[in-house]
């Protein structure tokens, strides 16, 4: 196993760990805002690790660029959506 493969494997483990952390957070935290907080952070870190691992595996500049774009888009969309959903959760109507 080469060094790159070892790093890739480690990154995959980190990514999976963060996804699990996000899921534990969304299942165990007591209220909607702490759940939301757990989800957005853990998720994007997990995706970042996975994207870097995939980039190392492909070893191609263009593909790495596309992977970075995927991560940035996801980060951006998740952040915006989390902010909006958090505010919506404050509205009395959403639990109706």
């Amino acid at each position: 196993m080469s060094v790159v493969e070892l790093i890739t494997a480690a990154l995959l483990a980190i990514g999976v760990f963060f996804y699990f952390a996000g899921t534990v957070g969304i299942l165990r935290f007591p209220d909607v805002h702490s759940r939301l907080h757990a989800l957005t952070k853990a998720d994007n870190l997990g995706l970042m690790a996975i994207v870097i691992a995939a980039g190392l595996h492909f070893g191609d500049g263009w593909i790495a660029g596309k992977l970075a774009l995927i991560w940035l888009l996801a980060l951006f969309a998740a952040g915006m959506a989390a902010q909006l959903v958090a505010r919506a959760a404050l509205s009395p109507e959403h639990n109706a």
Partner: protein
Amino acid sequence: MSLAFDLALCILILGAAALAVFGRDLFGSIVFFIVYGVLIALAWITLGAVDVSLAEAAIGAGVTGVLLIGAWQGIRDGGGGEPEAPTPWPLHLAAGGAAAALCGVISFAVLSLPGHDGLAGEVPENQGALELGNPVTGVLLGFRAYDTLLETLVLTAALAAVWSLTPSQFWGGIPGPNHVKPPDGVLASFGRMLPPRGLIVAVYLVWAGADAPGGAFQAGTVLAAVWILIVLAGLRDEPRLSRLPLRALIILGPLVFLGVGLIGMLLGAPLSYPEGQAKPVILVIEYALTLSIAATLALLIAGPARRR
């Protein structure tokens, strides 16, 4: 490992579908249906059907969710959200029996299917004349182009059907609610920042579609989704449905498609591509179709006019 993944995915798909169909909470059902769309897109990836996966990701996981949430709100605000009456148990029994029988018959048919090679060998063999690298685009716009032509006409017909529900005094007016235009905020900046990126993705998908997975339907759906986001963020209002340029845009794709077929008729064979010129003609059709599909889908989601 691959088989374990497939197995887990199939179980999740069935679970998400069951929760979506049988959930007590209507909104929860919609959420499960969105999840179901994501999982189905993953299933198409594992089957190696990336073209289908792209369409499912854009439609099932994206646009259908927005459509259903809009319908849910419209029905609730319209006063149609009363709790559903329980179904009598004999009906449950009969429907359950019929469904189980259906499942059994289809499963039996699946298990007794002979092995096959399908047309997978023949499509690339005949692909040479079209000069397209993506066999799915070759089938959509080459070998079975008349299917695609009729399908775009189905989309146009569905739009006409949706418009026929317009109250008479709003005919030709503006669909959707009059969204507040927030000067600033998270939603407004989201609406400003995402569309250019979505536009790039859409252009890329239609450009890649000739030789790699992608194409008019996928790109058109992404474009429609981008437009819906702009409207939801309140940055632009929906167009007036009576506007001529809008209607021209809707029928542009089918018209170009039909026009090519008619020119083929003048040159000899009806509904055929000119010899040796297939690829440029297919690309022209593809680009025109992308625009028409985007406009038609966006207006289908927007629904009938409700303002003047």
